[in-house]
């Protein structure tokens, strides 16, 4: 069983590595890079909100801080935005610390509302601190590298790192504790789990990798403004839809979700014109009705069902 999973992972990795040999059109490469960025954000969000159950509506804060770390290095200090890949994730973690301290006092919907507000606070802050952030004008950089293949592989490496780190966290004591907190915080406390500490242990890596994605986005797209990178609908809410579609609290769900979401988004936009956003509304309804566990989640349930049937165990679920 374990070997099969490892083989599948290697097969996927190989496929991802040789993909640029077959896909050459810049537009298609662009789509692939966007998928990678969204897979990183989704995987990060999934750690905090999927496994630990602390649903965040404010991940744009971490994404934007990562992106602006890279942008501001270039704008004010004339450093290469690539340094942002080091600074961005660290800054996002620093931002996450007070957010955790404030929001983790709250449970369930109240936590979600607090993060929603925090994301918006950052957007307004960056819009109005014009001396520091250039406000709504945004930051435009001249990228030193324009080869899309390069960005593809760089992004792929970061995604691999994110997936590996998340996998290792989830399949350790920390992972068991995070899921326990999600399932019942009082029961978790009664088992001696310091819940606030462990929520932070989910939040910090989540912010770190979201910040990494943000800094990478700045380098790749070369233009950011607060309404793009701190966007409530296009970042914070979108990441939730990506993970819901792919499968909450699954290893591959966010990546699968990102791929389908970006591809569908492009298809809807080219075929439906202005009505494309409508389709996402329909899609959300369909997911909730028919795939409440997301694609990877439903597959897992199906697999377990078959295993149990094979093992001949009696009794229903």
């Amino acid at each position, binding site marked *: 069983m374990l070997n099969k999973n490892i083989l599948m992972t290697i097969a996927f990795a190989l496929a991802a590595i040789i993909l640029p040999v077959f896909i050459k059109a810049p537009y298609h490469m662009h789509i692939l890079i966007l998928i990678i960025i969204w897979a990183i954000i989704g995987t990060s969000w999934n750690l905090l909100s999927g496994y630990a159950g602390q649903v965040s509506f404010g991940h744009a804060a971490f994404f934007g801080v990562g992106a602006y770390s890279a942008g501001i290095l270039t704008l004010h200090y004339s450093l290469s935005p690539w340094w942002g890949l080091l600074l961005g994730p660290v800054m996002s973690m620093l931002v996450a610390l007070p957010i955790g301290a404030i929001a983790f006092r709250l449970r369930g919907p109240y936590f979600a509302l607090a993060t929603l507000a925090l994301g918006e606070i950052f957007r307004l802050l960056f819009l109005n601190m014009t001396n520091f952030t250039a406000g709504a004008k945004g930051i435009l950089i001249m990228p030193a590298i324009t080869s899309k293949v390069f960005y593809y592989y760089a992004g792929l490496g970061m995604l691999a790192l994110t997936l590996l780190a998340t996998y290792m966290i989830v399949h350790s004591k920390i992972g068991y*504790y995070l899921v326990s907190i999600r399932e019942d915080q009082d029961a978790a406390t009664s*088992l001696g789990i310091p819940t606030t500490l462990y929520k932070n242990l989910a939040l910090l890596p989540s912010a770190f990798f979201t910040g990494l994605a943000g800094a990478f986005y700045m380098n790749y797209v070369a233009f950011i403004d607060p309404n793009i990178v701190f966007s409530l609908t296009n970042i914070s809410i979108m990441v939730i839809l990506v993970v819901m579609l792919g499968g909450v609290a699954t290893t591959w769900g966010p990546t699968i979700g990102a791929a389908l979401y970006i591809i569908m988004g492009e298809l809807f936009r080219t075929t439906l014109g202005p009505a494309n956003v409508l389709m996402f509304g329909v899609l959300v309804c369909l997911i909730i009705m028919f795939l409440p566990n997301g694609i990877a989640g439903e597959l897992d349930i199906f697999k377990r069902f078959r295993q149990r049937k094979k093992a001949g165990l009696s009794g229903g679920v």
Partner: protein
Amino acid sequence: MSIFEAKNITKKFGGLTAVNDLSFQVEQGEIFGIIGPNGSGKTTVFNMVSRFYPLTSGEIYFKDKRIDTLPAHKICKIGIGRTFQVVKPLRRMTVLENVMAGAFLRTGSIGKSRHKAEEIINFCNLDKYMHREAKGLPIPLRKRLEIARSLATEPELLLLDETCAGLNPKESEAAIELIRRIRDAGVTIIIIEHIMKVMMGISDRILAINFGKEIAMGKPQEVANHPEVIKAYLGDAYAKSN
């Protein structure tokens, strides 16, 4: 030697005094029962001991160390486990994972935690359901899982909150048998229970409370025949007619 002592503990919720100046000691290795009518403050006592509620006044000692100033998650670490009256299974985790979550308190290794959890699941006769999700279990098994999960944290003192409530007589008997085996394994137990038959058969000593105050304490037979206890359970009229 008394392993646990509550000294003059009081809990007020606004104007309501749920637990009023209550004191008791629990000896190492005994099964100590707490009885009382609905709303008499039994579960509040547990919530005070496990630090889910802060005390209004009073002191709690465990192994001669004061514990009513510790944060809730530390209580389990020092050796006091608890179950909940309204069971709180980790619903989307299997029975094994539930118990492992408890076992992780004393180890960081997945292998060791799993091994420990399997032992405890066997001890609690839950082995048939090891890989079932907790949300699919019927109530008697959920209550048993609650105990198993708590045992995995290696408690020296276990607080059992209405472990037999809602069980039929046969299931109750199995639960009592399990509680006895836990005591025989060296765990001191404080148990809250409504069912007098259960309490009479299992407890070494019983504390009866009403309106948060002690009304009787002693051997089960003494407490059961105590006029104040009969009055609390059956009312003034019945107590007088006897």
